[in-house]
């Protein structure tokens, strides 16, 4: 995920500092970097890498967390594939990809086109500050606010709809509306981030490209397709990767807003992991779910990062 940034920097640094190989090489103490890394890796290894390896290992066992675990091979994965709730959870994560990634990125791109229609507009800093606020809010607070906003009793959205004569709807309680209702909250959190990234990206596109395109008679779409879109490749990849991972790992929002309900209509993989491991005590199944989550994140980020490297 970090590769876009790292990759660019790496190349730049390599290009610039071609002669002196690395600052640290002036001291002939080959053991020193290892000594520096010892403590960070001890902590990171114990509390991230080791549990990660254990997640995969436990996924091949049946375990209630108390008695001795028994090796069952791929049985947990077979069970997951047959489990309607888990399949539903996975599907909901897929739907959330639309709300977390597709909608905000598309909306932000559309708005960014506006910004390319003219030269520098002054005073955009204020919007950046405002648009970014949802990014720094605790997700629990976001969930608490929106759960109330959707409430049929005194909820802001139903109050607003009431002004135009629409009857109050329990958005989070209805099987049909719960998932998009939670999803739209995610879109609300994400769009400002994408917009801020794209606004910054557009400013680094050479204005003369647009002027030249105008002279050549290029229309709005052509300018977007051949100047703006390629120019924003980096920010688009970053916004897509980040929001995609958020869509796959989502837990807080679902836990606070719906606990996966009604009737598991909003459950997601991370919520299933929590349920299985800490409520139902199906530790092996939970570990298998977590392994699926980790693999999904790694595979999808890899796929998106390919676009960064594409010409």
């Amino acid at each position: 995920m970090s590769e876009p940034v790292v990759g660019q920097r790496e190349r730049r640094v390599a290009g610039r500092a071609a002669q002196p190989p690395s600052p640290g090489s002036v001291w002939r103490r080959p053991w020193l970097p290892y000594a520096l890394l010892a403590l960070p890796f001890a902590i990171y290894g114990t509390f991230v890498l080791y549990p990660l390896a254990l997640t995969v290992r436990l996924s091949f066992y049946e375990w209630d967390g108390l008695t001795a675990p028994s090796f069952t091979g791929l049985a947990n994965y077979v069970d997951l594939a047959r489990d309607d709730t888990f399949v539903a959870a996975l599907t909901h994560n897929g739907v959330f990809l639309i709300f977390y990634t597709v909608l905000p990125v598309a909306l932000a791109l559309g708005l960014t086109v506006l910004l390319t229609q003219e030269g520098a507009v002054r005073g955009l800093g204020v919007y950046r500050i405002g648009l970014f606020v949802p990014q720094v809010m605790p997700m629990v607070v976001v969930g608490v606010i929106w759960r109330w906003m959707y409430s049929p009793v005194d909820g802001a959205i139903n109050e607003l709809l009431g002004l135009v004569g629409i009857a109050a709807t329990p958005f989070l309680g209805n099987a049909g509306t719960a998932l998009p209702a939670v999803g739209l909250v995610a879109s609300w959190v994400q769009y400002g981030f994408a917009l801020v990234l794209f606004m910054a990206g557009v400013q680094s596109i050479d204005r003369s490209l647009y002027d030249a395109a105008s002279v050549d008679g290029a229309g709005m779409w052509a300018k977007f397709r051949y100047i703006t879109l390629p120019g924003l490749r980096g920010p688009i990849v970053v916004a897509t990767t980040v929001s995609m991972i958020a869509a796959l790992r989502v837990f807080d929002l679902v836990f606070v807003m719906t606990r996966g309900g009604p009737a598991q209509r909003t459950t997601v993989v991370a919520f299933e992991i929590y349920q299985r491991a800490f409520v139902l005590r199906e530790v092996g199944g939970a570990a298998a779910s977590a392994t699926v989550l980790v693999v999904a994140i790694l595979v999808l980020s890899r796929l998106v990062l390919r676009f960064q490297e594409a010409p």
Partner: protein
Amino acid sequence: MRASAGRRTARSYGTHVVLGLMMLVALFPLVLMWLTAFKSTGELATNPFGLPEQWRFGNLAEAWDQGSFGVYVRSSIIVVVPVVAAACVLSTLAGYAFGAFRFRGREVLYLIMLVGIMIPAEGIIVPLYYVIDGFGLLNTYWALILPQLALSTSFGSFWMRQFFAEAPGDLTDAAAVDGAGPLRTLWSVLLPLARPALGTLALLLFMWTWNEFLLALVLVQNEAVRTVPVGLSFFQGQYSAQVPLLAAAATIVSLPVLVLYALLHRRFIAGLAAGSVKA
């Protein structure tokens, strides 16, 4: 000429209107939360969107007391401060090693360290519970500090490596000529330069640790050790009918991060955009 300038201004108004609208949508729920936090439950039904008829600052105190937020804020501080401080130290060490030295296995070790940026806590929480239990640390502050520190060190190493890799080599060379060793150079030459990078890192880590939910929900059951976000989710369970109190509690929980953001928004935005590798 004149006409063209006029058109530009018109378009510019359009941009301001659209961006302003987008900003309003982003801020509306939060502003509504703040206004609601000062209303009475009765007033909410009659005046959902307006300013409170009477600003009930007592709501904040009541939410604070009834939700035992004093306890949760204390816990959060006890967790956040060591995580941010220790993660900054560990990240500096690792970032220095990765950024300023060339050694066997550097690429591989760096890639391994980066795995932690992509892997969410959700992916490791199941065995983590048993690992923490094995150390006898469930229901202690350590249960929240150590995993969060480990995840933070992964991101921090990536962040600080960038700083050290870009730090001008002449500086280290000059320090070496003067006879300074690598640690002396780190301490007196590089770290003073690293202050902006470290500051932004500390800010991001503060935000992520303050907002952290899953670890605190799972690894700690004891109310005395519970942190603010989990405290709020329990508070919601009990007070969902008393919306103004709930809004007051949500305001309290988000206040520290929002105050920091108001003061240092430039760093937050630059940091999150550059470090947006972290979800």
